[in-house]
């Protein structure tokens, strides 16, 4: 116990020191800069308020992005140029082809499934009584880290030789209905689908909650009018509800696409990218921190950057449109 305190007290001390230092420095700057008056007051205030954020953005995002692009044309140690060699490797290496194929699979299947199921649940919730408990329970996995969720599902997929007592739920069910369970995470391409289940489990609640808020925003009189005209069930959904939540649906879908493209934690925790399950972000990590090849790793990062770009250009455009309508 005293050991524990001896090793951990300094950490807590550094926590409080850092916080105190941060606020004291800020307070001093505020007081000193506040003394300025007249014509200088405004530019000084602007400087004080804006500079920290701009410096962080410059040092943390803008310059590193430039350097990563530069590194992607360099050798593993980033001390000599190799032209397009790293990109040629991406285009031709059969291992990378699997990675790109998996990433494409993730980017297409998971967002569609997650958003569609979220929408279905949102519609069903709207038609039932006492929705708050189911909503909370389905939404809850969203608070669980991908690492935690991966451990949960790795346990669900745990495998023992056929005929033995199974401790993984999936294996137990498969054995109970008379089939031999397999070592799930080793079977291609089933393993990638099983990893997707983890993503779907954590993210469906998110899609559901956001779409549910949109559905509740559909005016009741519009629904009543269509119902009086004889629209029911599917027809009511297709003709009235869906068109009114379409924008939200697209936003959720785009969010899921970006999350699937950047996906790292699930693959890292469950298979480490082995057995043909690797994806772009995981491969990038392996190249940099396992193979120590900053060139190939950076080229993969640039690929990731390029693939999310269209979605964000769309986002920026809609933001501009929204603002000009104000």
């Amino acid at each position: 116990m005293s050991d524990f305190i001896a090793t951990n007290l300094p950490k807590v001390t550094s926590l409080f020191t850092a916080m105190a230092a941060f606020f004291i420095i800020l307070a001093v700057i505020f007081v000193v800069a506040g003394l300025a008056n007249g014509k200088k007051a405004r530019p000084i205030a602007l400087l004080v308020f804006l500079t920290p954020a701009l410096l962080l953005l410059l040092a943390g995002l803008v310059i590193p992005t430039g350097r990563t692009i530069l590194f992607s044309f360099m050798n593993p140690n980033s001390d000599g140029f190799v032209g397009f060699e790293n990109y040629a490797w991406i285009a031709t290496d059969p291992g990378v082809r699997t990675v790109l194929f998996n990433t494409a699979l993730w980017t297409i299947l998971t967002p569609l499934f997650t958003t569609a199921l979220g929408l279905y649940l949102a519609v069903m919730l709207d038609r039932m009584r006492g929705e708050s408990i189911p909503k909370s329970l389905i939404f809850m996995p969203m608070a669980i880290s991908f690492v935690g969720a991966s451990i949960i599902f790795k346990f669900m997929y745990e495998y023992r030789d056929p005929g033995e007592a199974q401790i993984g739920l999936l294996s137990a069910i498969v054995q109970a209905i008379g089939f031999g369970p397999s070592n799930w995470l080793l079977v291609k391409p089933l393993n990638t689908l099983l990893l997707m289940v983890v993503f779907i489990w954590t993210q469906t609640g998110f899609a559901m909650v956001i779409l549910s808020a949109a559905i509740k925003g559909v005016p009741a009189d519009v629904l009543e009018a269509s119902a009086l005209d004889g629209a029911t069930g599917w027809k009511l959904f297709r003709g009235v509800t869906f068109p009114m939540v379409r924008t939200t649906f697209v936003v959720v879908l785009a969010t899921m696409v970006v999350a699937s493209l950047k996906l790292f934690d699930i693959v890292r925790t469950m298979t480490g990218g082995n057995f043909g399950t690797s994806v772009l972000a995981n491969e990038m990590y392996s190249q940099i921190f396992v193979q120590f090849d900053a060139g190939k790793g950076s080229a993969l990062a640039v690929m990731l950057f390029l693939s999310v770009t269209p979605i964000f250009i769309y986002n920026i455009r809609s933001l501009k449109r929204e603002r000009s309508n104000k």
Partner: protein
Amino acid sequence: MSSRGLSQANPAKKLFASKWATVIVWFITLLWFIPSLSLLVTSFRSKDDVFNTGWWTAFGNPSFTLDSYRSVFFGDNGGGVSDGVLPYFVNSIVITLPATIFPVVIATMAAYALAWIRFKGSDTVFYIIFALQIVPLQMALVPLLKLFTGGASIGSFQFFPALGIAGDFAGIWLPHTMFSMPLAIYLLHNFVSSLPREIMEAAVVDGANHFRIFRSIVLPLSIPGIASFAIFQFLWVWNDLLVALTFSSGLDNVAPINAKIASLVGQYGSSWETLTAGAFVTISVPLIVFFSLQKYFVRGLLAGSVK
């Protein structure tokens, strides 16, 4: 997109209520709850029970123990996690609090400047910051790590010194603060810019300068917006793996619990009783935040769904 509470019902629409919807939703809810239940149950079973029988048999033959939690918290003398995960839990707290509070303060300041100290081009700066969300954090990892360890130089000219904070908590606070900026400024700008103009103008008439306005008007009135973003950022940092692995890899004195648990999966892949207990400790904090602050959590998610 309007942000509403979790359980706001529209009475008129309950006209369409159907029994089938109730059955289907409860079925899916049950399905969704089984994984969490398996984690919880397994973490309270003995090593032998977990190894020999499925967790669902615990319902017919209940026998529970706190052994796994004891070994996860305080370590044990063989098998499991040698010194327990409690030090990593402390690391997580030491990482997460500043990595939440620093961005909140710095981003609120920037948001105030962009919204209320208008200057030529302040809209452009805002759009550029928003657009920076486009950069996946993967793009910044390697250069940032190099910056922390070796500084930055052009040829032999060192224009930025090595910060010497690699392997230090500051080396994790800083990347989290940097990466959170675009989203934080965007969200808080939305909030700060919608504060009533009359209050601001009245304060100026009273002779308050920008620093006073920021402290006594902007911060207090922005609490709901700040809370939404802070919860989002707190959970993001607590649950993060990539930044943690990159900036604390192999460093037990700073690694957060999430990264530690992830590494245990590789080392103790079959000690499910320990892994499940460790995982439950890891996710307990986000779950507490989730259940106690659900309203703010949803609001933050609605607004921050692009990260």
